[in-house]
């Protein structure tokens, strides 16, 4: 009998009841919630007269719909304030720990899980947010769910789920200088498409993946949903264990030794068979940027916008972006730079930006926002003096939240304006009605902010 993939091992060890002709009952170790996709689930269980089954396994924060300025003041916009207040009331009523605005642990849900040690190898984790795939970087099965499923977890700590197929994406070799985790994942998505991963759960492997830091791995797994995949994971190794050790909610003492011994077994068997295997050479990957309205429409920064091949959706996309086929992207004027989101708002991302902008100032035509992923990231950045570098360079350092990644709050890119963004989606209007988003790495975004037009970070890296 063939061996098992890491995904198989974790899935099978969390199945409470195998579905004969339908989905499995899957046990969930950690459930993360936020203000936007949870209120209807709370009212759902209340309507049924059911209480939260395992409230200690759910952790809440406010991130999607919070202002990134003056967080100590009441939220001005009424609907947003009510949504955040509803989360607080629901958490109090049902006994859920909440890291609300002002709390030292508050932040984007996928940033705080790892940095607090809530996310640990071998777990199953869900959240009403598609970028829950981020936590897969630790060797967890982590995926986004809808609100009805949030309600399922509230009621039973389980969800009904059909087991996805398995896909291996291997990136071997060493990346070129200046190529970051974000470039790697944008490259992979550009090759596989936004639906190529649908129905699959991905395991990322290969030397180029293994050489990434935990934060880089999180960036890669974060965007596995943009392949259409349910999630992405990376087998835990020493890099993982070193990151988790000592975090607030990480196991301690004897418990640590016991868990560590278990975590070390979390690898794919040598003779395991994946349903699909895709391999890339790291040396083929350049620094990347997107030009269209889905994350697979990415090219190397030095490349040309592709020609239209008669595809209506492609044509509509270029029209929306006001991009000319067969023209270079380099040199195109940009209006906004957004550094933030669950993809790239961690301390290493902020350091990468600081490293480039130190001693320079942004171009006059650029508005540059830096939104740290969490209070911890914000404090760390201030402790390291990065805030002064950003200020001197004309960047605005704001307070933690999802911000202009999805523009639910007032952080919106105006109509028709171009924004080079470190976030994960470049859909029409994603950063505000009529906004035009180009996805790139923090280093690229920083270099663009300095130049005022599309460029790569090469000249700033020495």
């Amino acid at each position, binding site marked *: 009998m063939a061996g098992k993939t890491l995904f198989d091992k974790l899935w099978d060890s969390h199945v409470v009841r195998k579905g004969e002709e339908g989905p499995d009952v899957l046990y969930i170790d950690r459930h993360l919630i936020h203000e936007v996709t949870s209120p*209807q689930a709370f009212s759902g269980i209340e309507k049924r007269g059911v209480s939260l089954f395992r409230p200690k396994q759910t952790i809440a924060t406010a991130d999607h*719909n919070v202002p990134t300025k003056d967080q100590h003041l009441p939220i001005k916009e009424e609907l947003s304030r009510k949504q955040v207040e509803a989360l607080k009331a629901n958490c109090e009523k049902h006994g859920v720990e909440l890291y609300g605005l002002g709390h030292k642990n508050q932040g984007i849900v996928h940033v705080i899980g790892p940095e607090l040690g809530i996310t640990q190898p071998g777990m199953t984790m869900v959240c009403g947010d598609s970028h829950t795939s981020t936590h897969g970087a630790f060797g967890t099965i982590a995926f986004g769910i809808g*609100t009805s499923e949030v309600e399922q977890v509230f009621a039973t700590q389980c969800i009904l789920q059909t087991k996805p197929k398995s896909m291996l994406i291997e990136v071997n070799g060493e990346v070129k200088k200046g190529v970051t985790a974000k470039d790697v994942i944008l490259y992979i998505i550009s090759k596989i498409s936004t639906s190529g991963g649908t129905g699959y759960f991905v395991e990322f492997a290969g030397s180029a993946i293994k050489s990434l830091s935990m934060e880089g791995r999180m960036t890669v797994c974060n965007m596995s949903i943009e392949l259409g995949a349910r999630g992405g994971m990376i087998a835990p190794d020493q890099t993982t264990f070193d990151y988790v050790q000592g975090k607030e909610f990480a196991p301690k003492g004897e418990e640590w030794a016991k868990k560590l011994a278990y975590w070390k077994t979390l690898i794919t068997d040598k003779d395991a068979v994946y349903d699909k295997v895709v391999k890339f050479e790291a040396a083929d990957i350049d620094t990347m940027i997107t030009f269209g309205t889905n994350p697979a429409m990415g090219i190397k920064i030095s490349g040309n916008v592709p020609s239209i091949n008669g595809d*209506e959706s492609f044509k509509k996309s270029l029209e929306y972006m006001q991009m000319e086929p067969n023209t270079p992207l380099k040199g195109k004027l940009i209006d906004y730079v957004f550094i933030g989101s669950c993809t790239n708002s961690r301390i290493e991302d902020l350091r990468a930006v600081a490293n480039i902008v130190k001693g320079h100032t942004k171009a006059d035509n650029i508005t540059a926002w830096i939104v740290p992923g969490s209070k911890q990231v914000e404090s760390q950045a201030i402790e390291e003096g990065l805030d002064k570098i950003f200020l001197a360079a004309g960047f605005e350092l704001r307070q933690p939240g999802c911000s202009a990644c999805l523009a639910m709050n007032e952080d919106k890119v105006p109509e028709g304006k171009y924004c080079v963004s470190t976030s994960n989606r470049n859909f029409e209007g994603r950063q505000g009605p009529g906004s035009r988003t180009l996805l790139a790495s923090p280093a690229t975004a920083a270099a663009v902010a300095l130049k005022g037009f599309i460029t790569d970070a090469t000249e700033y890296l020495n």
Partner: protein
Amino acid sequence: MEKFNKLISSIVPLPLENVDTDQIIPARFLKSTSRDGFGENLFRDWRYTKEGAKNKDFILNKVSSGEILVGGKNFGCGSSREHAAWAINDYGFKVVVSSFFADIFKGNALNNGLLPVQVSDEFLQAIFKANSPLEVDLENQSIKIIETGLQEFFEISAYKKHCLINGLDDIDFLLSNKSEIENFENNRLI
């Protein structure tokens, strides 16, 4: 959840690929704490101009009826917001047809009694071409273009089919497994 069995209805065609959940319902309309009323902002930025006037060229402003929405390949990609399924449902659609659905959207639709019917690329093109009413029969797992008589069968898990036909949801089922869940917790080694 509402029961679903059979539906004959005209269609609302949206022949675009990769219709993402930010188009179905933009994030700025996700501030409600209830499940109702999202239909008002379904396809908001395609349906209305920035001044708030109806965009005459958009399909929802051109047809006045139809309970079957037909979209291009990879319908519902993007975020996990169930609000997308709620908005489509709230607007009055009972069925969404496409040649390919994003996973989370498909699950969300099924959890709300909105039937996602996945057809072949050829059949999807035939639907767009005929622009005729469709008959969707869940019991037989069939979809038929009324005017041409062209028919195809679609896949759905036996469990989900049972739920839709009987108006049951997953929580009812999960709650009936409580003791097994507790056993599982008590017997875990790690």
